[in-house]
């Protein structure tokens, strides 16, 4: 039986889709069988970030409405044999997602995949609550910025009340993924530090993804960053986050924190 992971945040634009693709790929690169499911009906983007935008024939809504079989809608990644994508519908709206339909699809995916990664839409409406509904584990993607932290706090509240796990009295496992982190700005006191965010949200840290050009470069070419440039700082951070997700005890390091003399003078802004 696979694990269902929801990647959520409340706020938009913090890196849910990028992180879903990168973590999904990292897990698949370690040999696990992974499917990444886009729940952002009407505004799908996971297909684009993963470079499969021209291969989408059937989507999640088609499967839920019985217009296609699940196997027909699953798109296998061209680079990784163990990585699959289930796209969201671009033409319909989120009302086409039914609770029973989502439940059936998730249950079927759990049987064949080690990881079912649900890429949640922004907001706290139907799409977001359905994406988190069946999760075993939640990854809360947060930027070190006040509005993102506030929205994450709200999402944590929903994870603890509106999920199946919470409703059956179980504790929902939640992890913080801090993205777009700029250690130089945090050091200067112009960005919330890792410890500040951890203290405020008080959930365990899964990883810190540094602000980096490599992330944009990867999405430009339609490749998860762990596949596009496996040795880049964000890729390494995602690989480590994936290992922690698999239960490995791995200390979290702040990327790019060690700066030499020249780094201090010239390297004030991360690339």
């Amino acid at each position: 039986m696979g694990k269902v992971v929801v990647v959520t945040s409340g706020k938009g634009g913090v890196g849910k889709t990028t992180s879903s693709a990168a973590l999904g790929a990292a897990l698949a690169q370690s040999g696990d069988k992974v499917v990444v499911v886009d729940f952002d009906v009407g505004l799908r983007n996971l297909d684009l970030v993963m470079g499969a935008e021209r291969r989408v024939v059937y989507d999640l809504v088609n499967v839920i409405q019985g217009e296609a079989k699940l196997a027909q809608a699953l798109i296998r990644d061209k680079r990784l044999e163990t990585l699959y994508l289930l796209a969201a519908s671009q033409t319909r709206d989120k009302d086409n997602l039914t609770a029973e339909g989502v439940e059936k699809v998730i249950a079927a995916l759990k049987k064949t995949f080690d990881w079912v990664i649900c890429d949640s839409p922004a907001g706290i409406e139907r799409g977001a609550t359905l994406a988190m509904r069946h999760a075993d584990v939640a990854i809360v993607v947060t930027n070190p910025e006040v509005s993102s932290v506030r929205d994450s706090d709200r999402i944590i509240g929903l994870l603890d009340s509106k999920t199946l796990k919470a409703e059956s009295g179980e504790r929902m496992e939640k992890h913080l993924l801090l993205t777009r982190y700029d250690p130089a700005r945090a050091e200067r006191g112009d960005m919330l530090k890792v410890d500040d965010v951890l203290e405020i949200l008080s959930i365990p840290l899964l990883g810190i993804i540094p602000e980096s050009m490599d992330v944009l470069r990867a999405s430009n070419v339609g490749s998860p960053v762990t596949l596009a440039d496996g040795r880049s700082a964000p890729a390494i951070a995602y690989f480590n986050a994936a290992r922690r997700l698999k239960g490995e005890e791995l200390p979290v390091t702040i990327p790019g924190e060690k700066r030499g003399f020249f780094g201090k003078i010239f390297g004030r802004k991360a690339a």
Partner: protein
Amino acid sequence: MKFFQLFSRPQSAPAARERLQVLLAHERASAGDSDLVAKLRDEILRAISKHMQIDDDKVSVKMERGDKVSTLAVDIEIPFDAGRKAA
């Protein structure tokens, strides 16, 4: 680094941290309240409708939390002929 800071703008991260801590303390406390407010509204509505007929959506109950005192504002609109209808 410290030397340069003497001449630069004050740090903004501590302000962000403090504002968030105050705000979230409020928001977390009031998250459970919405339930309480709904219950209060229900009971107030029931108590009044024993004596006069009122519209369900004409009753508004608001709770505002302060540091020392919280206020509960109840606003009920009673129609002109409410008493007669109930009687």
